[in-house]
């Protein structure tokens, strides 16, 4: 069976470079599996088992592997970024709900959403440097450009916390709004965007002290970001509203909106930059949005509660070229 499936993927991917870049990975968080889809033919090619409750996937700093966080089994599953084949399992990473590597590739940080702690690892060998317990459901993380600080949203307490990577100590912990989830550092390294899932928009936060500089209304349940192009434009999923907003971060205004039903969550852009893929968690589908026309052109069936989405081979040299980040995000999950 597995051989057959691999054969099917190989066939779909073809032998050539271009064809291999055609695959898309989606994590079905409620059924402990991931789907491999064909980007061009927009169908699911195969489904494989993986740990339990996989939510997010990231790329290693060398750009060779993607790591799937299997939250309940406390491990990372490595897949080859080109072929999708399994490379290894990193054990003893507790509750890897959301994760990220610092821009310099030195640090690996996880937010243990269910267990209320943030773990800072030396990326080399995944050796734990420090574990910081913090109340309030740590959900999403982002780094500063110097790889000195990691920022973690605390969904339950409505706060944002900053930790010093070198010393693994808390720098500050301040309120930012209801149920903060997705967070990104803008390329200027001077502004953090935080999505407020319990409200109807985002806040712009000063990375120095967590002070809220401004707010922007986007839609109910603002949740997660994905950069377009050089990072001036960001897509944002609004889970309750059922829309994706396009935000111009220089003017700080919404420049486009597209309706995506079914609790849209994580996103990824195809390597050619033409399509945005979005998981529709409730509908068990992945929506394909034509970026130029800003409309949904397809919706592909996958497994239960699809969460993270990832373009094979599109990873390390991501469009924003900023911190390598989770290919998805999300909080929720009981």
């Amino acid at each position, binding site marked *: *069976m*597995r051989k057959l499936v691999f054969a099917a993927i190989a066939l779909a991917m073809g032998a050539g470079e271009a064809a291999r870049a055609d695959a898309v990975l989606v994590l079905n968080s*409620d*059924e*402990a599996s991931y789907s491999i889809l064909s980007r061009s033919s927009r169908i699911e090619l195969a489904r*494989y*088992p993986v*740990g*339990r409750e996989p939510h997010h996937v990231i790329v290693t700093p060398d750009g060779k592997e993607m790591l799937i966080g299997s939250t*309940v*089994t*406390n*491990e990372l599953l490595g897949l080859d970024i080109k072929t999708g084949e399994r490379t290894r399992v990193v054990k*003893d990473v*507790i*509750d890897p709900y959301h994760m990220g590597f610092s821009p310099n590739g030195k640090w690996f940080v996880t937010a243990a959403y*269910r*267990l209320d702690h943030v773990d800072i690892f030396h990326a080399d060998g995944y050796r734990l440097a420090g574990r910081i317990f913090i109340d309030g*459901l740590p959900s999403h993380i982002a780094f500063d450009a110097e790889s000195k600080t990691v920022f973690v949203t605390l*969904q*339950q307490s409505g706060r944002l916390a900053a930790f010093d990577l070198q010393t693994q100590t808390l720098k500050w912990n301040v309120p930012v709004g*209801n*149920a903060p989830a997705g967070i990104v550092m803008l390329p200027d390294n001077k502004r953090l965007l935080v999505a407020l*899932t*319990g409200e109807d928009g985002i806040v712009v936060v000063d990375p120095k002290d967590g002070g809220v500089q401004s707010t922007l209304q986007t839609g*109910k*349940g603002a949740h997660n970001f994905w950069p377009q192009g050089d990072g001036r434009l960001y897509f944002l999923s609004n*889970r*309750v509203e*059922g829309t994706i907003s396009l935000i111009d971060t220089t003017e700080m205004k919404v420049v486009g909106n597209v309706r995506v*039903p*079914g*609790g849209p969550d994580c996103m990824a852009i195809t390597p050619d930059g033409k399509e945005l893929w979005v998981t529709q*968690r*409730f*509908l*068990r589908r992945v929506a394909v949005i034509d970026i130029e026309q800003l409309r949904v052109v397809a919706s592909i*069936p996958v497994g*239960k*509660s699809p969460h993270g989405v990832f373009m094979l081979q599109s990873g390390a040299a991501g469009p924003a070229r900023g911190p390598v980040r989770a290919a998805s995000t999300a*909080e*929720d*999950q*009981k």
Partner: protein
Amino acid sequence: MRDLIDIWVGLQTWIFETAVGPVLFEFGLMAWYEPGYNAVEFVMLGVVQIVVIAVGMRFFERRWPLEKSGKDDRLILVDQIYTLLNKLGIVPLAIFVVTYPLVQEIELAVRAWGFAPPRLERILPWLGDNALASFLLYFVLYDFAAYWLHRAQHAFPWWWALHSLHHSQRRMTVWTDDRNHVVDDLLITLALVLFSQLVGVQPGEYVIILMIGRLVESWSHANVDMNFGWLGNRLLVGPRFHRLHHALASPEERHIQDHNFAPVFPIWDILFGTAIYDTRNRPTGVADPAVDNDNDRGWIAQQITVFWRFARALTPKIRRATAL
């Protein structure tokens, strides 16, 4: 198949986004957004089960009844209330609210301790490639746990004080399965949820196991005179098999109810020597008049009186002290 899934989740999403999601959002309960969505499915599955029982199973009860209708028919009404309260999620929601913090505490303590519940696929890798085999194995494991819990319900006096409510029904029908005291439901749910987490049943699988399991159990209480052959009777628990478990004890068969405990797969009774296959028809119920009195009560009165029965069974010393 995919069309069916689309219709199902389309309806689920519509109900959730119209009625449940906005409420969670308004009250700042976004951490419950996904669980709330799953709760909608639970209720939808409950409606499906009610339809299957009321239309499908009732057809067989009308066509081939074992006990003919008579003056005891009025006893069925309260069981119908139990079924509605359970299948429409009202009792389960109450149980969830009570057990959630406890389950959470236990799960987090275990996980913080560094223990990761195994998934069977770790031990039997081939399972990963066979969704059906994997599902069946989890189902069988779940049923194994349920079998032993059911034996415990009969073995401990305080638990029997609760479970006897289920057995007191003299007029057993497809509606009887949900006739349980809420504390009994709570204990069983708690135990089965913890067991499922321990062996690694996934949320998606859990819902299907629950759905199919409960349908088989409703059917096993049916008042029908049907035979499913030697093999059929040994593969799945049917009405004859479970009716024997509900049989009224007699001087010749004092411990008749200590047989046929299995909820779904009779294999457990066969393996552990508690199976009886025969075709005698016996009346059902409990000989103890204090328990039989349940039949004269409605839902609320049953819940109150059985709770007292339970409380007294828990405190034998105090009772003796006051008796002196």
